[in-house]
């Protein structure tokens, strides 16, 4: 088992009492995320869509590697590794959906 840290961005951390760092022991990336979710199950619906994939604008980095570019979350982790949740929003639009083109969310 490796000791790794799962980092939660401050905005999201508000739904789990402000916790921004979750220390877990795991063998794989998936195992570490499972441990973090076991500790804070409220995070699940905010991180994953109904199909179990990361939400469109939620990124997960294993150290400096974007997990979108690896084949599987069954990747081994080592002592001291960082798993970072990052919200992938760029630009200045207040309404993200106006940027990604899925339509307006507000009426006036």
């Amino acid at each position, binding site marked *: 088992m490796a000791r790794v840290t799962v980092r939660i961005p401050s*905005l*999201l951390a*508000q*739904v*789990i*009492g402000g916790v921004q760092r979750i220390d877990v022991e795991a063998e794989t990336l998936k195992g570490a995320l499972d441990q973090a979710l076991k500790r804070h*199950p*409220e995070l699940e*619906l*905010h*991180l994953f869509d*109904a199909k179990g994939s990361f*939400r469109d*604008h*939620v990124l997960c980095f294993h150290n400096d590697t974007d997990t979108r570019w690896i084949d599987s979350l069954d990747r081994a982790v080592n002592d001291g590794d960082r798993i970072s949740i990052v*919200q*992938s*929003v760029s630009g200045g639009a*207040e*309404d*993200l*959906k106006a940027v990604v083109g899925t*339509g*307006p*969310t*507000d*009426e*006036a």
Partner: protein
Amino acid sequence: MKVTAVVGTQKGAFILRSDESRAEWRNEGPIFKGWKVTAVAAPAQGRVHLALASDIYGPAIQIGDGFSTSEWRQAADGPRFPPGDDRELDQIWTIFPHGEEIYAGVADAALFKSEDGGESWRLIEGLDRHPTRASWFPGAAGLCAHVLLSDPQNPDRLWCGVSAVGVLRSDDRGRSWTLKNEGVEKVVPDEEHPEIGCCVHGLAQDPDDANVIFRQDHRGTYRTRNGGDSWERIERGLPSGFGFPIAIDPTTKALFAVPLESDEYRLTPKGRLGVYRSRNGGDSWDLMRHGLPQENTYAGVLRSAVAVDSLDPCGIYVGTTSGSLHFSNDRGDTWRTLPHLLPRILCIEVFAE
């Protein structure tokens, strides 16, 4: 007496405190900074509920013991569409305590119910099974079930407003629903189902007769005296039939509306913020503007961004899309502006205790 105004905005909730005078307000927010706070529920079963939403992280319900700046926890099993349902739960628009139950109206249009104080929620399938459901068309804010009413004398009777579908009524506590829009002009006429296509924006209910309901719609302002079986226009004195909120003083039954300049522009008419009041059940309306900005004001007022408190004389609270909050503590006769500029205001609820 303490008065608390909970203001939900695009970037968090602001908790404003005052006393019975409601003259000065102290801000204790924001809480959930950065989250859209899309609905605030009246205290129920010793708890209060907030609906949060994020374009990144999705929606959730937070439960608190009161409107303080700490001690919140997320509903353990919040509203979610069941596996295999391909709808996305975009936003929770209303949280509505009803006896021992709590209902939530969401987009994509659906209702959820909790029987354990808001901890766990299940989909009410009756609305989904409506025979016109496949033809429902979203308004500019999405296909949202955004307002609920009930009949205190008959707990089985509920009303639900869905944009851009119309008002539906249930007489069996949500198991089945009937469209109730006779007399209301359609926005999106449907060839196959001519009974849908109304875009209800806001509802207010007579505190003494639940079947008397006032309705701010996309194409006009209306009243029913028979639980929605038929509606009539009540627009004498209004500059426009278009607007979002409508609210009622529980003591005098005065109505309050904030018409906007057409569905094309959705701004305060002529750069003036005007609140209209009716003291005769909607038969006619008068402009209340003393103390409200009367020039160079171009803002919108969203459907849940007007609240009336339960005191006598009542206070009225109007939040704008520009983040200004205007309030009256004398039934609308005079107004002041909160010396705070908040993010875009989505909803307001006021509680006196």
